[in-house]
């Protein structure tokens, strides 16, 4: 389903990686590992079509993701490095907006349910600026509970800033999603307890040009 062909990424004057290939089918989980600055986020942004690779292409069901655009957006859930959480909006409003952008029309109850599910019960009406870093991360991740239909998840450091309990929760979500036959790509520098079918280690690939 998801296929990367001969990817090369250059940031500034540094080649982060080149000649990167992988193919991911439904029901498979890929972990991207590597040190800080090795290009994990860049790779994920290329996979999403946000970043233009210096060379090569990413294909989704055989088509280049740069030409698919919103068609790809309908099938993809991307949780980025930044939480995309607005300080001035409440937790519930933030989740509603992000789900609507993903093409869903969540009602109040489902949003509250999702916030409960991610461990934010009672915070629905609080403005996001009153939340802690970990809680904001949970607001961003609450979307995973609502957009379970998307066949591809791309998660950039989903466990960052989360406590042990929340990490377990998110890991369970990911496993369940993979079991449903979806593909998941995620980065993490913590040792993962998730059984990844593919692992890409970028540390070795990074080199100066």
């Amino acid at each position, binding site marked *: 389903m998801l296929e990367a062909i*001969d990817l090369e990424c250059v940031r500034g*004057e540094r080649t982060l990686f080149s000649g990167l290939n992988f193919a991911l089918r439904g029901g498979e989980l890929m972990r991207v590992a590597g040190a800080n600055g090795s290009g994990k986020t860049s790779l994920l942004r290329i996979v999403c079509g946000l970043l*233009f690779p210096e*060379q090569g*292409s990413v294909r989704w069901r055989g088509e*280049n993701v*740069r*030409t698919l655009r919103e068609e790809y957006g309908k099938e993809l859930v991307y949780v980025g490095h930044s939480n995309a959480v607005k300080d001035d909006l409440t937790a519930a409003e933030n989740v509603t907006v992000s789900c609507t952008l993903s093409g869903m029309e969540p009602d109040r109850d489902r949003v509250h349910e999702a916030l409960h599910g991610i461990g934010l019960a009672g915070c629905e009406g609080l403005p996001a600026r009153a939340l802690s870093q970990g809680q904001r991360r949970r607001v961003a991740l609450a979307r995973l509970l609502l957009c379970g239909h998307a066949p591809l998840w791309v998660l950039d450091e989903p466990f960052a800033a989360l406590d042990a309990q929340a990490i377990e929760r998110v890991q369970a979500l990911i496993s369940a999603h993979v079991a449903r036959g979806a593909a998941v790509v995620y980065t993490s520098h913590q040792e993962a307890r998730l059984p990844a079918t593919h692992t890409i280690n970028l540390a070795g690939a990074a080199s100066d*040009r």
Partner: protein
Amino acid sequence: MSQPSLVVGNVNWFKYASPQSFYPLAGAMIPWFAWAAAALCAAGLYVGFFVAPTDHQQGESYRIIFIHVPAAWMSMFLYLVMAFWAGVGLVFNTRLSHMMASALAPTGALFTFLALWTGSLWGKPTWGTWWVWDARLTSELILLFLYFGFMALKAAIDDPRRADRAGAVLALVGVVNIPIIYYSVEWWNTLHQGASVSLTRAPTMAATMLTGMLLMALAAWMYSIAASLHRVRSVILERERGADWLRAL
């Protein structure tokens, strides 16, 4: 933006319409254009100053048109060429066309400034004022701002690839706007001044005057090509510092 489209056998052929092969080619072409510019300029100045007769209305001051009109033509033409290369770069993702676009901008801005300067010096004896809000002068002024905007945007963005593509979008937006700006200003101008002044020459222009002007226009054209080729070579050297072929140079 879309991916480069000419991909055959997993090779992006546009990538090889490349700075690498263009660099020596440009180097070989520069002297030809430079000498052509010098020769045409000499011929144009000779015709302009020693063959063309005195204008019976404006006296000798009209001789400014030998640089004013070519400069004005080049300023608009270079913007179009710049936008063309920017558009090509945006569609096909070719580095070289973006480099061409950035190499053309300073020369275009130079000619725009010259058109304004000479227009103003011509306006003083002709209309008795340094500046009139004539449609052409005003559009020329705005064109200068557009050139400056393009260069400033490119200079402000650190990542060269992003700078190229952002500049290209701006150049294309500008090119759509230039005719709108021109006709708006012209309309505004006719409403306010009743078209009392116009930069267009009297229809009876001596053939030798026209010859001189065309020679100077050709000279300006050749000069622009030579200057932008020279600049694009510098841009290639700056941008492709890491490339193998340059290290072997």
